[in-house]
């Protein structure tokens, strides 16, 4: 409505999601079908400027891509993303006390805003959060008096003149070093981390508890939410995701396996077990089925950049909530409603428990989420139009416009449509990310990372 006339909308093009023509830009990763488990991508995140794109995988590795400076000659294409740094963030561990493996899989990566020349990010597995510093080195000192260039020491008695060492340029080296390790604060599996807008603290959430940390302090954290019942037999729901408000440093939300979102204010009390707001859509009890609770479980919650709205993803839909209205979402988008009549098989093959993420574009006008068969969906909040696209190597010529896909739920399948029964449920897009300022998106299939851009004329 009014957004169409805002300066931002004009920058992106009045329509947003559907007036944009998405083009293939790049694909990263191996071509072969035989996917090693370590290569399964588990998280994707742009940094605050969009210049860097980080991925985490099941093998505990982080790969960071950097956007190339825009080519002044070829000003019609944006910079490509190339490998900037890669490192092993987490190692597999063994909990001797419980006789359980601790997976090295990176569950989430979150970037800190840049304060100096170095970049910082938080990465977490099930139990431990680490703060990584990524810094560039492009100069090195030369001309020591007591050391040769190769490092060997010179005999001081052979020194006859003195010189002043100088810094000379060298080939760029990008180094990643762990600066803080935040361990031993979670009994259950960490599902979320979120950096506060104060840039000093962050939260980490597991199935039953949420902890508040200070980035400088690793030996202590405050527990701010604890939903563990005194008697575990009374357990009815778990925490599925949590996020700090983008502007209010005292506010955060957490979602549950029962489809509710609680907004908490840390000024109200030290332990935020009592929510300030409870967002829940009332359900018609006569509609309830065995699957109702499972498919209502929220797999991701994301605030809009403006902070006015939040988006939740459950199994079949994406919902936009106005923080001022708790009793129902303001918008609901069906991601793959045709799966409602397949819930039995999806339960049997465990797909019903897949945790899809969702994301906003920079202007909060379009939202995106993944689906099966390497399809992903975008919903334009202004035009109410949606589009289904596919991440596939078949369209891998740069600047090839992606063709919209259609799924035929039942009845006669039109040409170019794909029927529900032909969908490949092993090809799931769980993780997607949208550049904070431009129409560049990163879409992760099982083991490949696709980068798409809008067509620049």
């Amino acid at each position: 409505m009014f957004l169409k006339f805002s300066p931002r909308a004009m920058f992106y093009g009045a329509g947003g999601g559907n007036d944009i023509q998405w083009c293939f830009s790049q694909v990263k990763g191996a071509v072969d079908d035989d996917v090693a488990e370590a290569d399964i991508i588990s998280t994707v995140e742009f940094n605050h400027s969009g210049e860097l794109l980080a991925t985490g995988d099941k093998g505990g590795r982080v790969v960071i891509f950097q956007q190339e400076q825009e080519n002044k000659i070829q000003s019609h294409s944006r910079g490509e993303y190339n490998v900037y740094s890669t490192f092993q963030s987490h190692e597999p561990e063994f909990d001797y006390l419980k006789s359980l493996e601790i997976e090295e899989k990176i569950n989430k990566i979150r970037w800190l805003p840049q304060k100096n020349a170095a970049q910082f990010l938080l990465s977490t597995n099930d139990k431990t959060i680490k703060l990584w510093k990524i810094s560039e080195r492009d100069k090195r000192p030369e001309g020591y008096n007591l050391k040769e260039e190769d490092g060997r020491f010179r005999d001081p008695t052979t020194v006859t003149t003195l010189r002043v060492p100088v810094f000379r340029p060298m080939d760029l080296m990008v180094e990643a070093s762990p600066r803080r390790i935040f361990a031993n604060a979670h009994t259950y599996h960490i599902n979320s981390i979120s950096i506060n807008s104060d840039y000093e603290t962050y939260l980490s959430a597991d199935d039953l508890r949420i902890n508040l940390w200070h980035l400088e302090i690793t030996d202590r954290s405050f527990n701010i939410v604890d939903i563990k019942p005194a008697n575990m037999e009374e357990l009815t729901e778990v925490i599925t995701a949590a996020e700090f408000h983008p502007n209010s440093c005292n506010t955060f939300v957490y979602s549950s396996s029962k489809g509710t979102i609680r907004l908490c204010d840390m000024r109200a009390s030290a332990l935020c077990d009592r929510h300030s707001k409870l967002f829940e859509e009332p359900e018609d009890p006569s509609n309830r089925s065995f699957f109702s609770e499972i498919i209502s479980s929220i797999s991701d919650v994301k605030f809009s950049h403006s902070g006015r709205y939040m988006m939740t993803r459950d199994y079949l839909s994406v919902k936009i909530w106005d923080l001022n209205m708790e009793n129902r979402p303001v918008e609901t988008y069906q991601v793959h409603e045709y799966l409602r009549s397949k819930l039995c098989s999806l339960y049997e093959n465990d797909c019903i428990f897949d945790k899809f993420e969702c994301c906003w574009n920079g202007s909060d006008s379009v939202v995106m989420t993944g689906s099966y068969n390497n399809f992903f969906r975008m919903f334009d909040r202004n035009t109410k139009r949606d589009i289904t696209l596919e991440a596939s190597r078949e369209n891998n010529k740069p600047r090839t416009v992606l063709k919209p896909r259609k799924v035929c739920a039942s009845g006669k399948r039109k040409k170019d449509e794909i029927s529900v029964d032909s969908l490949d449920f092993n090809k799931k897009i769980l993780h997607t990310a949208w550049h904070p300022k431009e129409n560049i998106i990163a879409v992760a299939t099982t083991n490949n990372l696709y980068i798409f851009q809008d067509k620049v004329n």
Partner: protein
Amino acid sequence: MSQKQEEENPAEETGEEKQDTQEKEGILPERAEEAKLKAKYPSLGQKPGGSDFLMKRLQKGVRGTISYPLTLEPKGMGPVEQKYFDSGDYNMAKAKMKNKQLPSAGPDKNLVTGDHIPTPQDLPQRKSSLVTSKLAG
């Protein structure tokens, strides 16, 4: 849910049925699916959201004490992690897996339990793949 929210502009078809019909039949597909599931697994617990179900989710890797029939694996945890009896059991299992993956493996340094007294140097560092991610390749 109100009708208004369900309506999407049908201009961009995704193959879904007209929203109105879908809305009315929305109850039926889910119930039909539930009936299918109950037919296959008659002793399935009534509510999947109960504490048993969630407990399984919290304790990834625990088997046993299941209220589900044997044909249905504990749900909601994703890949079930195996629970090991102790660290020796764990190291043995990892060694076996490593043997399968690396055909060129030499004398098995991983089997430190049982044959000789292990020293800190002997204990296998359970390193994940030392290979660089293929995304960076």
